[in-house]
């Protein structure tokens, strides 16, 4: 049943992405409701999938790398639905769709560890720490996507050539604001998640600790420099994209190191 839900989600996202690319290539891209509707359905399907696996594992289903990747796809969709529509950023859905699709394809086709039952998290503080960390990564993912959109819009405006994307991407000022606020949101969630981790007194692998601390420190530095106007919006956007790439690369390693032995 769970795999049916994941396959259905993947098919819906593929359809939505294909439709967006077709509209873009024919010059008839309209920031309609296709991506939003697709992501709402995918959110419901992924929620059902997580609930079913949670029932089987009797804990939040983040006990294997496969679980973590699916949970990150779910949290990215959640943050998009909560925050994306609030900022009314057209096309954010079109940028979120490929990222969520990439995560789902990775979960389904990459040779990931899928055996959670042997090492399910039982401590509620650790469970809270782990799930909130992944939701924070969802916010950082959205910040990275807003950063990509900012850089594309900046390039379109600098090139002075008009074009479909220029007209459909949101104003660059709004993208800069969304980028910064999403980093703030992710940082706040990650800080609470780390605090919960400390409260639980969990044993942390040194490499995992320093990788997580580096991510937290990098985002904290970004918001501080942004706040004191030392970091320009364009550089903030660039750094948020680099940081997202770093998270996507290191997430499997962190999960591997944090798994209870």
């Amino acid at each position, binding site marked *: 049943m769970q795999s049916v839900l994941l396959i259905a989600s993947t098919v819906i996202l593929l359809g939505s992405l294909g439709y967006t690319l077709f509209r873009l290539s024919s*010059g*008839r891209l309209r920031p309609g409701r296709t991506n939003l509707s697709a992501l709402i359905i995918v959110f419901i399907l992924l929620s059902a999938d997580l609930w079913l696996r949670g029932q089987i594992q009797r804990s939040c289903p983040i006990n294997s790398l496969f679980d973590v990747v699916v949970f990150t796809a779910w949290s990215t969709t959640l943050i998009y639905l909560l925050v994306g529509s609030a900022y009314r950023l057209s096309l954010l859905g079109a940028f979120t769709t490929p990222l969520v699709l990439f995560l789902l394809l990775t979960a389904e086709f990459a040779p990931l560890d899928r055996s959670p039952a042997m090492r399910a998290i039982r401590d509620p503080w650790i469970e809270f720490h782990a799930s909130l960390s992944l939701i924070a990564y969802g916010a950082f993912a959205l910040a990275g996507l807003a950063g990509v959109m900012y850089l594309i*819009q900046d390039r379109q*405006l*600098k090139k*002075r*050539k*008009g*074009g479909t994307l*220029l*007209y459909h*991407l*949101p*104003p*660059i*000022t*709004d993208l800069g604001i969304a980028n910064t606020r999403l980093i703030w949101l992710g940082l706040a969630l990650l800080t609470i998640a780390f605090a919960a981790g400390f409260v639980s007194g969990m044993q942390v692998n040194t490499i995992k600790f320093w990788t997580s601390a580096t991510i937290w420190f990098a985002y904290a530095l970004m918001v501080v420099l942004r706040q004191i*106007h030392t970091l*320009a*919006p*364009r*550089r903030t956007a660039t750094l948020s994209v680099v940081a997202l790439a770093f998270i996507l690369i290191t997430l499997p390693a962190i999960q591997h190191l944090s798994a209870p032995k």
Partner: protein
Amino acid sequence: MTILCAGINHRDAALEIREKFAIGDHELVETLNHLRAIEGLSGAVVVSTCNRVELYASSITPAPVMNAIQQFLRSRTSGLEAPFFTKDSLPSVRHLFRVASGLDSMVVGETEILGQLKQAYSAAAGHGSTNAHLNKLFQHAFRVAKQVRTETNITRGATSVGSVAVDLAGKIFGDLGGRKVMLLGAGDTSERVARSLVSRGVRTVIVANRTFDRAAALADQIGGLAVHFDHWHTAFDEVDILICSTASPHPIVTREKLEPILRRHSERPLFIIDLAVPRDVAASVNELDNVYLYDIDSIEKIANQSLNIRQAEVVRCEALIDTHVTDFMHWMRNHPTPTL
């Protein structure tokens, strides 16, 4: 019942001829009364804009009614030879649908004509000059126009310097409410662009011109502030949009001059519209972070690009219109007698 259409428009008649035919609001009732008096005419709508004067009518005796309409039009020429057009039945229906959709406009895809058509129809209906066939025809035309606008790119993009500037400002700042504009030089085009921006909510306009009196006069007209030209940079700190159009032979705004000013600019983007030839702003300014520089060539290129996109959409629009013309003609065949 046959739909008739006759008149004059920008395709065949120059402005000096069109203006002789223009039917002002004060003449409208008289004109409609005159048309209603034509024997065999059962309804009439008069459309008079700067680009066209067109009369739409319905009749069960089309030939004599068309003659009478032509006679009426000739009576307004005062001996001037004018290129009238006449259409009946299907071509007249197609013509109205094309007009409503902006396909027959001087700037293809413009939407102002739809409002003008609605106004003309509402005036005729208010006067009691329309019948069931004309009511159906105009309501159908408004539906066609809406569909064409939503399902094609015919209204895509801006096509004038002013509207391109407003569009770009929107893509940089989003809401223009509360933004501050500075005019360096008080040329006609820069004044038009400034007015377009003010109509979209820009808060303050500062005008700096070598002739202070001209700056003061323009500032007075558009509700702005005038500053002496030599002091423009002192008033620049909170400016979001700079419009340049001086006659200076060398760039006035250079990277070296702008960089220290931008340090006080709180990271807000700066949109520079350089309408001057030779250019007032050094091209290297566009390399600065958060600065977007557009000269007259780049703005005109974007306007032309929009026009090309619109032209490419005409075929799709015509196909949509053809479907609606067929539907309407089918309805006409099923409702041959006038219903009041």
